[in-house]
């Protein structure tokens, strides 16, 4: 396990991105904008990728395991986004 890369600038950008999107999404009591939701989901996947590759030390060592670990949140993020976008597309 290698935690040093977790403190790289990429990690800070991801943390800031999630927090900023959360604050922007809840600025007013209204439905969350799709853009803010997309930002949260994209940053979630980026954070997962960073943890899997750097913290769990899977960068270049076990590519299939790393891919499987990243696919898990990607699948649910894509499903959640598709569900949020579906009404706008259908109506």
């Amino acid at each position, binding site marked *: 396990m290698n*935690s040093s890369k977790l403190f790289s600038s990429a990690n800070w950008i991801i943390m800031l991105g999630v927090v900023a999107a959360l604050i922007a999404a809840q600025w007013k009591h209204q439905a969350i904008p799709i853009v803010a939701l997309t930002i949260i989901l994209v940053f979630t996947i980026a954070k997962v990728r960073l943890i899997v590759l750097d913290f769990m030390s899977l960068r270049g060592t076990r590519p299939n395991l790393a891919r499987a670990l990243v696919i898990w949140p990607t699948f649910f993020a894509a499903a959640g986004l598709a569900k949020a976008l579906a009404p706008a597309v259908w109506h």
Partner: protein
Amino acid sequence: MAAIPTTEESDEGGDLLLWVLVWGELAAFGFLLLGYLVMSILHPESFGLAKLHLAPRLAGFNTIVLLASSWQAALAVRYQDKPQLQRLFLLLAAALGILFVALKGVEYSFEWGAASDPNLQTFFELYFLITGFHLAHVAFVALLFVFASIRLERSTIVILTTIWHVIDIVWLVMFPMIYLT
């Protein structure tokens, strides 16, 4: 007589335990979230109504608390050669985890009334099952962080921190699915 495992063999054993734990968590939460997704597609009206009773602002603040906690846990792994700092970061991670549990308790108290409505029961059954299961993990691992801060054993801290990141990731996926979509 059984041979004493070498350091490498012990590390492999630790790795295997870690992967079993990580995949066990991801599989369990995966099935629960899949169930939630299917039910939300089958009952869009009642799920939409039920979500009006949730507290997304509080849950959003709790997301920041959990992110800060996993950051402290990662710092504890980073400062393994400085026991005092490592202990401090572990206790901070545990404290933020306990704050998450407390805030979730406050959130539940707002939502409890709406859960008794028969029209919203399907949503709230799944909601309490998924978030309650997650909450139990947060409370349990936060407690383990306190014990880990007493012994400061490297392999234990690494396993706990990794599980903490998995719990954090599960919440980051669960939060937009339940509260925001």
